[in-house]
């Protein structure tokens, strides 16, 4: 399995696409951080925050995360590298697990600009605010702006960043079965983006039905996992991590049950 992961990381490092995605998320992270800086200063209309939400981590990762799954999982069917791995004696479970790990590494890589720029912005001590659209790293930027920096704050910031990344990975883990079953890049991106919009539309339902809210909070799309900040308690962190890990495990199990005996065309 380590061989497969190492080989796929090598392949990813040679990919132009991952570099482009990294540049895109870096520019987007810079854009939203600038907006979050200019809005509280009154230089930009706060209504513009909704427009710039498009460049936020939560929105960009919904599109680009699914794109990574398309490029590096669906693409492996086109390149026949999945065929080669299986014909070389790798088990299908190993293939699924290693592809998922490398997919998560890719997600972590394109999320890095948001984490780093949020960290740099917070360390400046300036005021940032994106209003009601602040989710994920943008929420951390909004809620924690003006914080006094110290070693313990830095450690907690890293913990928040890693937890948010894990929640994102869990949310996107649904792309693993989608990519391995559909094998069509466009379908994976469209279905996943549509799914995230559907989940966002559940907000009203969550407030009206406690039962639905509880069930939904068992998935990384529910609860307040995307609103974790440095002020969140240890219980919030543990719950976010546990829900994410369990959801990833379920997705891997679903993928394995489908892919175990499927035709590899």
């Amino acid at each position: 399995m380590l061989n497969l992961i190492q080989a796929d990381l090598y392949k990813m490092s040679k990919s132009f696409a991952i570099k482009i995605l990294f540049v895109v998320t870096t520019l987007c992270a810079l854009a939203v951080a600038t907006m979050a800086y200019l809005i509280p200063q009154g230089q930009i209309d706060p209504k513009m925050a909704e427009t710039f939400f498009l460049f936020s981590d939560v929105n960009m990762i919904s599109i680009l995360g699914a794109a990574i799954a398309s490029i590096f999982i669906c693409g492996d069917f086109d390149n026949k590298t999945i065929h080669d791995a299986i014909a070389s004696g790798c088990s299908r479970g190993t293939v699924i697990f290693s592809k998922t790990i490398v997919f998560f590494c890719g997600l972590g890589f394109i999320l890095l600009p948001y984490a780093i720029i949020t960290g740099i912005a917070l360390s400046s001590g300036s005021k940032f605010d994106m209003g009601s659209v602040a989710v994920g790293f943008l929420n951390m930027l909004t809620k924690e702006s003006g914080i006094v920096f110290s070693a313990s704050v830095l450690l907690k910031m890293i913990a928040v960043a890693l937890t948010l990344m894990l929640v994102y990975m869990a949310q996107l883990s649904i792309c693993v079965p989608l990519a391995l079953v559909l094998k069509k890049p466009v379908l994976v991106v469209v279905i996943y983006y549509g799914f995230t919009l559907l989940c966002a539309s559940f907000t009203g339902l969550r407030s009206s039905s406690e039962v639905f809210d509880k069930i939904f909070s068992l998935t990384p799309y529910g609860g307040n996992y995307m609103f974790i900040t440095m002020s969140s308690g240890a219980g919030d962190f543990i719950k976010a991590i546990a829900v994410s890990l369990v959801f990833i495990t379920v997705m891997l199990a679903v993928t394995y049950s489908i892919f175990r005996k499927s035709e590899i065309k």
Partner: protein
Amino acid sequence: MNVILERAGEKMKDYVLKTNNLTKSYHGVKVLEDVSVTLEAGKIYGLIGQNGAGKTTFMRIVAGLTFPTEGSAELFGKKGDKNLQYERKRLGCMIEYPSLIPYMTAQENLTYHRVIRGIPSKTIENELLELVGLSNTGKKKAKNFSLGMKQRLGIAIALLGEPELLILDEPINGLDPLGVVEIRNLLIKLCEERQITILISSHNLPELYHVATNYLIIHKGSIKKSITLAELDESCKHHILIGCDQPEKLVSVLEMQLGTTNYKVMPNKTVKLYDFLDDKELVARAFADNGIVVTNFSIEGDTLENYFISVIGGDQNA
């Protein structure tokens, strides 16, 4: 006890692949039906069949890309899903298209596949590129390769890890005439020097005739014929097929008057004469002079193509 085990082991080593009544159906349509073949070590097997005959499906089952509906396969004497998966580490495959990453160079592609196989030696990459004639491709990406270059790189990838069974589906597709000869010589060399068993499918039957030591003719999902090169040569050898009322006398004329023993008496009493193909008149006159009534006197013998057509049931199936 040890002797028994050793002998059992020796027997296992006799074949690298054995299939037992392998059947594969898609939506109730059988694309492979009761395929039972045995591939011995150090031989080159030519898998011959029309498009849709089941060649690729057979190879895909062996490679683990699909599963049989019925029947089983044994690799290196091992059967069962887990064992087969493990034994596939001893395979090298290129089925349908080579497994290439388009944005990587030839060397980078080899590095990728070498790492997957856990081969630490980096020198093998240059050796294989040299072997398949791609050592001068430099920074050219695989997506810019010609079809022939892609095929060569696919073969190099299949050769990583010194496989004991090499499965090549149409490996000479897109190769120029010189490339065909180079790949042919390479396969023969691999088979002879490293005792690699090769299962190769191709539509280029004359080319396959130059490479294979054994042939498997597959038609509509069934193995119609399994034949060695020697048997094929025997079947295809050009001869005068003679039928007559007195075969004993005919043989006597051949030996005494025409001075040849290069003939064969068939079970149906016809005689295959491998000499005098360019001087049939002399033979005919000798028979007439001796009062032998000839009921058949024809030149017979086939090419692999004709033999294949005759095995699958004539031109109407070709």
